[in-house]
């Protein structure tokens, strides 16, 4: 077994996800204790250029047409052989629709230990995971055997996993990828919203506290006054009060606006991780104990309905 830390790069349709860089940064932190180097594992077809800015010692690149789009079966097959042969110290996967489809299966297939939801590594090289909706942290021992880990954002910044120097790419042979049980039929694009919230610098975001669809017009008025757009958390979209194109969250969009104003959003981890890169978060929530106040820069524990009229008036006044 070598002491390298492998990072399975998470990418979709030609874009490497932020979590990939976060994992590279985490992997480097881990190598401080374990020794060895950070090795990126890239599966796909004609995607080697994705690795150009990755902070890794080298890239193990498996290129095969069948790997062009992600399917669980193909990725599992491609990775199983690779891990079995090379026996790295640890393999990091994203805790996501791609990484989670693969990591547990490999743990069972290869009979290797698995630790989930790891956010960071302690100085002693112990994985620190977040469970129970973010309420509980667990620091575990890193087992002796090759360990699989799934990672969540929050411990490291994507910038820490980037590098100006492109790493060495080692082309690996793809195993037999026929007789697959899972195949991709097609992608269904998300509803084309009138607004791309990931590009808006000012977002007024509504949560369950907005109470009903009609009240959203108040948020829209505020957004209009500020020159921004309205976005929403999952409960609002699930009710059908706003389209999915406005969803901010783990299954929606990640946003990093200049200012993110939350109205009646509690701040559950799935939402928090999608907004944590915002420059300034301002939270309005009647419950002073809501977790949103732990990640916001400014907050007020008042009723948004008391605030709307007077805030909109003052903003308009300031704009002249």
């Amino acid at each position, binding site marked *: 077994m070598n002491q390298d830390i492998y990072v399975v790069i998470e990418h979709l349709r030609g874009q490497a996800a932020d979590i990939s860089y976060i994992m590279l940064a985490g992997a480097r932190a881990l190598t401080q204790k374990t020794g060895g180097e950070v090795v990126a594992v890239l599966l796909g077809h004609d995607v080697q250029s994705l690795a150009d800015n990755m902070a890794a010692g080298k890239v193990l690149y498996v290129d095969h047409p069948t790997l062009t789009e992600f399917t669980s079966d193909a990725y599992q097959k491609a990775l199983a052989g690779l891990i079995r042969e090379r026996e790295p110290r640890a393999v990091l996967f994203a805790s996501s629709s791609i990484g989670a489809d693969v990591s547990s299966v490999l743990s069972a297939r290869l009979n290797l230990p698995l630790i989930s939801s790891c956010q960071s590594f302690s100085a002693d090289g112990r994985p620190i995971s977040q469970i129970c909706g973010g309420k509980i942290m667990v620091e575990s021992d890193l087992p002796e055997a090759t360990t699989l880990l799934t990672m969540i954002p929050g411990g490291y910044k994507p910038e820490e996993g980037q590098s100006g120097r492109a790493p060495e790419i080692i082309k690996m042979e793809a195993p037999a990828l026929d007789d697959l049980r899972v195949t991709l039929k097609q992608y269904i694009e998300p509803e084309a919203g009138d607004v791309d919230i990931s590009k808006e610098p000012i977002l007024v975001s509504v949560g369950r506290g907005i109470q*009903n669809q*009609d009240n959203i017009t108040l948020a829209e008025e505020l957004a209009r006054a500020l020159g921004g757009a309205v976005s929403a958390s999952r409960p609002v979209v699930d*009710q059908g009060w706003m389209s999915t194109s406005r969803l901010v969250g783990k299954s929606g969009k990640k946003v990093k606006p200049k200012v993110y104003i939350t109205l009646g959003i509690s701040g559950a981890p799935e939402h928090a991780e999608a907004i944590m890169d915002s420059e300034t978060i301002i939270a309005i929530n*009647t*419950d002073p104990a809501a977790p949103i106040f732990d990640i916001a820069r400014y907050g007020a524990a008042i009723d948004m*309905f*008391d605030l709307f009229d007077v805030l909109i008036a003052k903003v308009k006044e300031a704009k002249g």
Partner: protein
Amino acid sequence: MSYDAIKSIVVLLALLASFGVFGWRCYQALQIGLRRGQSMPVFGQWGERIKGLFIYVAAQLRLFRFKAPGIAHFFVFWGFLTLSLTILQAIFEGLLAYANPHFVLPLIGQWGPLALLQDLFILCVALAILYDLYLRLIVNPERYKGSHKSQGLMVLMFIFTIMLSLAVMNGIRINLGEDPSMAWRPLEQMTGKIFSGLNEETQRVIEEISYWLHLGVVLLFLTELPEGKHFHIVTSIPAVLLRNLEPRGRLPAAPEFKGQIGVKKVEQFRWRQMLDFYTCTECGRCQDMCPAFASGQSLSPKMLIMSLRDHLKEQGSVRSSATASTKSLIGDAISQPVLWACTTCYACDQECPLFIEHIPPIVDMRRYLVNEGEVDTLLQKTLANLGRYGNSFGQSERMRAKWTQPIQPVIKDARKEAVEYLWFVGDYASYHVMFSDITRKTAQVFQKADLDFGILHDAERNTGNDVRRVGEEGLFESLVEKNTAAMDKCKYRTLITTDPHSYNTLKNEYPANGNNHPVLHYTELLDQLIASGKLQFDRKLGYKVTYHDPCYLGRYNGIYDAPRRVIRAVGCELIEMPRHGDRAFCCGAGGGRIWMEEQPEVKERPAESRVREAAGMPGVSTLVTTCPKDLVMFRDAVKTAGLEGKIVVKDLIELVDEALELNKEAV
């Protein structure tokens, strides 16, 4: 054959035909319709019931809530009874015409005072009918929307024709000297004078025509009677006699049919409910009072009962074809939005002159829908929260008594020590962020009055009043079980509640509660404390306020005066809104509506209408409430109706607290 002989035969045939049709239609409606209905428990309290006949039928008490129409109907009703003898007279006159063309009923046909009464009633009825025609054709009030206008007009014309023809007929008989009681009929003497210029022959012809018109229209009316709103002429007395004498706030248990809960088909209603459907006069007084209807939603209590009647007739028809029987009760006859729009405020049942119950059929049909899972997502979520956490907010039971933390001295835990008053706080007062301050003030007022009280802390659950009214009978039973088990372990004398909804079900629906432990709403308690001198206010607040009677305190449980005495005791001037007392306009939260999505057709929310009414009272600064849901709804409505600065909404306890604080500072 002589004319008189023909007359006798024709009258006989007409009678047979008319009574035949009338009898057949009545049979169809009552025998078949009511026979298919579910059984009722035996009726008791006959003294009360007979008394009711005098008050509500003879004196027509509820009808006078709408003054002018009430007076008109009073005359039509008593006119009908008094003049029914003239119909009897006409029938026997006709039947016996071949033997005695001038037959007069023995005794009653010749009694002067009766003749005078009949004479006067003809005028009163005619005037009443003219007023009613004016009402229907010119005024055309909102409450008639949806009623069968043509049927109403037809019957008014019938009655007018009957009166007119009777007046003419009797008038001419007076002219021809054939009326022994003519001295007792001043008005008919006058009608007679109109024709006195004509020769006898002509007058006789007119007399006969009037006779036929009189009898004919009566017999025609008789055949029409069972068909529509005038069936109430037959069913109203049984309806009032057999009205529900249970406490208003007590719903009957959910019917069960082989695993199916609630009512899915019309024959699953009890026969007494079916009698209600037949008794509706389509007067629309219930519709006028209904907050759901006023807001623009699809529910009208009047049209609900009319639809139930129509559906029942369709289903009960002997000649029902295959298509008639495939129409569903819920869906075709009554749409789901209609059922869910009801706030169970009792305004309809309060107003109905014939004690038709609108709420129980709605709840019975809701019970079916809930059991089938046909419930909107928001309500599903709330019911799941109520089932799991015992409160509608989805918060842990352990958070229920969090509001007590800053209070010194510590509030007693009734589970651990005996108390005199067990205070059932309720969901909204315990969990809702708008209320935490007010609930604390309530505790402090109790402490200032040196009350020995305690609460159930985590063991308290939602009492289930609105859970029951939303139709989740099983969950209601489960909540009753849990609360009763918790209360049974405590030692206490009296139960007090903050919330009128809790009050209602604890008092009327929880097992054997009123017997050992009286249940008081906090306003009743305050009233008692003030009366006994335990609470004294030296300083008077001096505000001009108006008071909203909560549905479950006022209409349901008759508590109107105690809160008013408290308001006056703290030195406020009370100005009544037009809709006050048993006509108070519901805030719209009851019946589980506060747990449901708002219906799209809503034009003006009930709470907004109410705060506008309050803000419109000259000089009034404060709307006083004594129900947590009212407070929440009205404070919201003040914002959404843009009335901030014009009126504030306060719970009565806030005024009491203020008056006491002033008291303290003075000391």
